[in-house]
């Protein structure tokens, strides 16, 4: 299982949370199952947002935050819905907070003149990984031209979160989520040529 969209009626997360809530799984076993299920998604979300050299460290921050939270996880009624994936939603918002924290810290620790820093970023590339991936032109473009709120929606939907989950996580309405998604596609459409 590589973290791609699961089509079945009950995602692995849902089954793990139910088993944990019933005491059929230890906290560590449940955590490990969720880590294996979502580690690639977390790393990919971060790879789209930050420089590739920072992805591993930031992914560890995300998982440590989740580890601390999972010890006191409250198994709510959302588990009854086959659509809801509270852990994926939590990881998604934590990736956002961690990426913002990383960017803020990086800005504050810059001692070089701004142009030098920008040159370094351009050379190593904040999206080196995406550039290396031949097929990732649309994703790479989205990272560069979409405002953060549109990129948030794109990344969440790509990972298989429903519009309702995205809306709840971002504290906006489903209509706003749809609107941002369509705007992001329109923005990409204006820049991408067929066959490029």
């Amino acid at each position, binding site marked *: 299982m590589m973290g791609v969209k699961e089509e079945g009626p009950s995602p692995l997360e849902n089954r793990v949370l139910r088993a944990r809530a019933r005491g059929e799984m230890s906290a560590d076993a449940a955590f490990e199952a969720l880590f*294996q299920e979502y580690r690639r998604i977390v790393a990919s979300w971060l790879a789209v947002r930050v420089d590739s050299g920072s992805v591993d460290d930031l992914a560890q921050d995300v998982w*440590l935050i989740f580890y601390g939270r999972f010890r006191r996880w409250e198994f709510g009624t959302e588990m009854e819905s086959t659509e809801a994936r509270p852990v994926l939603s939590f990881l998604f918002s934590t990736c956002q907070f961690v990426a913002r924290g990383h960017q803020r*810290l990086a800005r504050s620790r810059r001692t070089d003149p701004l142009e030098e820093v920008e040159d370094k970023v351009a050379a190593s590339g904040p999206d080196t990984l*995406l550039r290396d*991936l031949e097929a990732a032109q649309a*994703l790479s473009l989205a990272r560069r031209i979409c405002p953060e709120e549109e990129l948030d929606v794109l990344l969440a939907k790509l990972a298989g979160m429903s519009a309702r989950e995205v809306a709840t996580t971002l504290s906006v309405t489903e209509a706003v989520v749809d609107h941002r998604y369509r705007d992001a*596609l329109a923005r990409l459409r204006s820049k991408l040529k067929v066959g490029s």
Partner: protein
Amino acid sequence: MTERREMPEEIGARLDLEWRSLLAAISAPERSPLDLPPDRRRAVSPVALLAELEEVREEWTSLQGVVDEEMGARFANAAWTLKDLLAHLASWAREFGSEIATVAKKESFDYAIPFAMSVLGPNQWNEREVQARRERTLEEIFREFDEETARLQDLVIEIDEPALYRPTPFPLAPSGNQRERLLVPPAFLVSGKCLHDRYHFAQIRKLLDRFRE
């Protein structure tokens, strides 16, 4: 020849394909926190602290959107109203901010906050701080918490990294003896502040659900 633009659904499909390629190619960390020794499984890096403080601020903002004066006047427990509970969080945001600022300035503390009449917390200090905020508006209380939590984010960035992880005696005295201070790294104190906030946020969410019934 006219250049054709892709249709939105084609772009959606293309993004989906690229996303799947990225998932397949990414070298995601294989070591989980469970592979670390138990005492290292704490999210206390500067980035993690900034992220946790940011999450707390977002949750606070969302509470600000739903708590009004009428709700604030309702009782949260036998002694405090919901507004008092919010004031309690604001008072600790200010106290933690001051404490970390003191450490950042390499100064020490000339006061203690002893736990008293309870093993759960410094009840006398808590009560005094809540009382001091009784005349304030909800808006002032919400602003105080947010400004102080934002100040903590600034301090996490400003403080020397070795100082952030050096065990430091803070004013809290859990035994009740003023000379037996809490000895923890400032990073743990910031992490503890977020834990304390989230504990009360969960209480407040349940209260709000009850108020709506």
